[in-house]
């Protein structure tokens, strides 16, 4: 019964707009679309063009057309493959942790308890912090000499002494995932909480009458209801994961060694340190394609059952 209600709710369609209304809407949004084209489409196209050229460092003109040479350089470099692997591991961790943590926060804050309003307000704080600030906060929090995390772990008796999380390649990557996910989870929680608040109580009541327990209601009522929001959250998380730069750079600069050198850091180094615009652009195109493919696969997987 609950599932039937969800499906009928999702099938309800808004009446089609008249042609005149659509034209009017288009006119109203035209300035914003033109601005978007300037800020997003033009740089994206230029990056694609640059990736096939031997671009002079000024970047004013694309330079000589060299076909796929920049891509051959990228794919022939072990630095790229190592960085790609780090990016994939980081992204998987980031998407899973930030989505699950965000869902957990949202479920918790959807319940009635004293102080809920304050906690909901607090949720905005990490989200309102710039990524760079988050990176600096986490670098100090996990510091091997004076970090709060080490103090906490020692007080709880979980460690004997201070641990340098950022000097170990494996723990540095884990900390980078947690630090970045902490902010993104708050953003995910805000979206998911908004989704949860539109969930009609009757659905859960009907599911309870049908004999569903808390887990059953979560699986068969809450998750299906949240699916559109979850899809948005996951796709955004994937994009943020692939584009993540500031938090990692502030914490480790991609180190120790190349342990946390995700593709965005490699692009930065290539574009702004080595000033190799052609190769840097090729890397940027590859990263964009990766995040696009990741997002599309996710959407497809999430909506597979509705086909």
């Amino acid at each position, binding site marked *: 019964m609950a599932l039937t209600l969800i499906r009928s709710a999702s099938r309800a369609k808004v009446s089609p707009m008249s042609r*005149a*209304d659509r*034209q*009017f809407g*288009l*006119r109203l949004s*035209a300035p914003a*679309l*033109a601005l978007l*084209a*300037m*800020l997003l*489409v*033009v740089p994206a*196209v*230029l990056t694609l063009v640059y990736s096939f050229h031997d671009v*002079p*460092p*000024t*970047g*004013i003109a694309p330079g000589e057309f060299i076909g796929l040479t920049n891509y051959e*350089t*990228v794919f022939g*470099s072990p*630095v*790229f493959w190592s960085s790609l692997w780090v990016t994939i591991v980081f992204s998987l961790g980031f998407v899973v942790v930030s989505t699950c943590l965000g869902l957990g926060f949202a479920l918790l804050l959807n319940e009635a308890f004293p102080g809920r309003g304050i906690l909901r307000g607090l949720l905005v704080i990490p989200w309102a912090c710039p990524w*760079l600030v988050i990176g600096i906060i986490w*670098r100090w929090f996990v*510091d*091997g*000499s*004076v970090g709060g995390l080490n103090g906490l772990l020692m007080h709880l008796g979980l460690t004997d002494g201070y641990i*340098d999380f*950022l*000097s170990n*390649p494996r723990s*540095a990557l884990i900390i980078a995932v947690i630090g970045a996910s902490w902010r993104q989870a708050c953003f995910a929680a805000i979206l998911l909480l908004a989704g949860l608040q539109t969930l009609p109580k009757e659905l859960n009541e009907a599911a309870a009458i049908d004999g569903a327990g808390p887990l059953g209601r979560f699986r068969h009522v809450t998750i299906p209801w949240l699916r559109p929001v979850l899809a948005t959250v996951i796709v955004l998380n994937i994009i943020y994961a692939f584009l993540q730069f500031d938090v990692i750079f*502030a*914490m*480790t*600069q*991609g*180190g*120790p*060694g*190349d342990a946390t*050198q995700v593709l965005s850091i*490699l692009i*930065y*180094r*290539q*574009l*702004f*340190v*080595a*000033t*190799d615009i052609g*190769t840097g652009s090729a890397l940027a195109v590859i990263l964009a394609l990766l995040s696009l493919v990741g997002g599309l696969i996710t959407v497809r997987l999430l909506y597979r059952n509705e086909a």
Partner: protein
Amino acid sequence: MVGESAPFGRRTFLRGVGSAGILAAISPALAACGGSSSSTWDGKLNFMGWDHQPEVIKRLVSSWSTANNVPVDVSISPNVGYAAAIQTRLRGGDPIDVFYNHSYNSERFIKQDWATPLNDLPGVDDMVANLYPSARPRYVQADGKIISVPYYSAVHLMHYNKRMVEDAGFSGPPKNLDETYAQAQKLKAGGLETPYVAYWIKEFCEEYFNVYLLSEGVIPFDDQGDPVFADDPKTVRVLEWWQSMYRDGLAASSVLTDDPGKLSTELAQGRAAFFVLHHYFLTAVRELNGPESPNLFHAPVSATGETLQIGDVLQMGTITNEDRKARAWDLMKYYGWKDVDGKFTVLTEWAKSSGLVGPYSDFFDDPAVIAAFPDYYDLKFLSATFGTGSNVMPVRNQSWYSAFQMKVGDHVHNLLLGNATPTETVKALTDAAKAAKKGGGL
């Protein structure tokens, strides 16, 4: 009302968006045409720097602006990401008349026509003659092209805790790698957990590498800019020493990501006794007012007395208007050399607030400069180090060099973490330098 409006089809819309896109694509070029290269000038200069004491920067520039009746628009960017910020602005055609630059980018900016050579400007030869000969190659290329003026300079020196060293039974600071190891080991045995701190974060490893090579008497690159450090066995020795300092716990494992602020605190609080870095960190450590701050002093990195001289620069943007260029040059002279009265006004201010140095041969003779440095600075030693004991390594200015610079941290971290031997690291660094010089690649 809506129905009566003129038809607005998808084609019309797409045409509009397309035009906007084309306009956006050509706007940087248009901006460049109408910006700094324009022969007309509205009488205002643009100045860009990073955020080291922004209020002081604004005050200093404002003082010049008032005295010369030339309005200056000062734009301050965060130090982190400054290189990207200024390159983006210049690439977009934003006219900046005078700007801070990292010296390793200065030659490249000239090549890219983002900065103007300063030859033939009034007084520039006097300024060059006034520089320490050791400093000159940073600002004057081998072919005589003057590419920048100093923003500040510094030399790498050993900062050591005199009380701790003497209490441990040593008569003075260590004079070589073995002595540093021995002193650090004894201090550790006496309870100081990590006596040695080093700035081994990725982006600084290249600078550190050169400091230690120079201080051991190794010439890292020849006059053609080819890496020759592998030819000297002392290079492997330096890396063996680095590895043992890290592996044996004489340096904290966190030094791979620690920033200098934290390392200065370690010294001030008495949690470390040795730190090789820019001389002006002594000001930072002393001003932290920690229990051990008064016991910190300078010493040479090693008995050879040789070290690396570093510094960042001021450059002039591409300016075609002669009046504008003349005014920009006046501002540069004031900011990077002397004011119209022949005083190091700006450089004295930086010496007072941060211990920075103007690399001029008469800088340390100026009474105002002497008064600006706190008593704990040994100005004779500092002056001698600038005069004859330091090297700017001109190769570090070359446009390909930053591609090598960004690789050094990866290899040094691998060495410190025990994933590569010193010999393998030397080979990897040589290969990286050769590849960077050749161009291309990741």
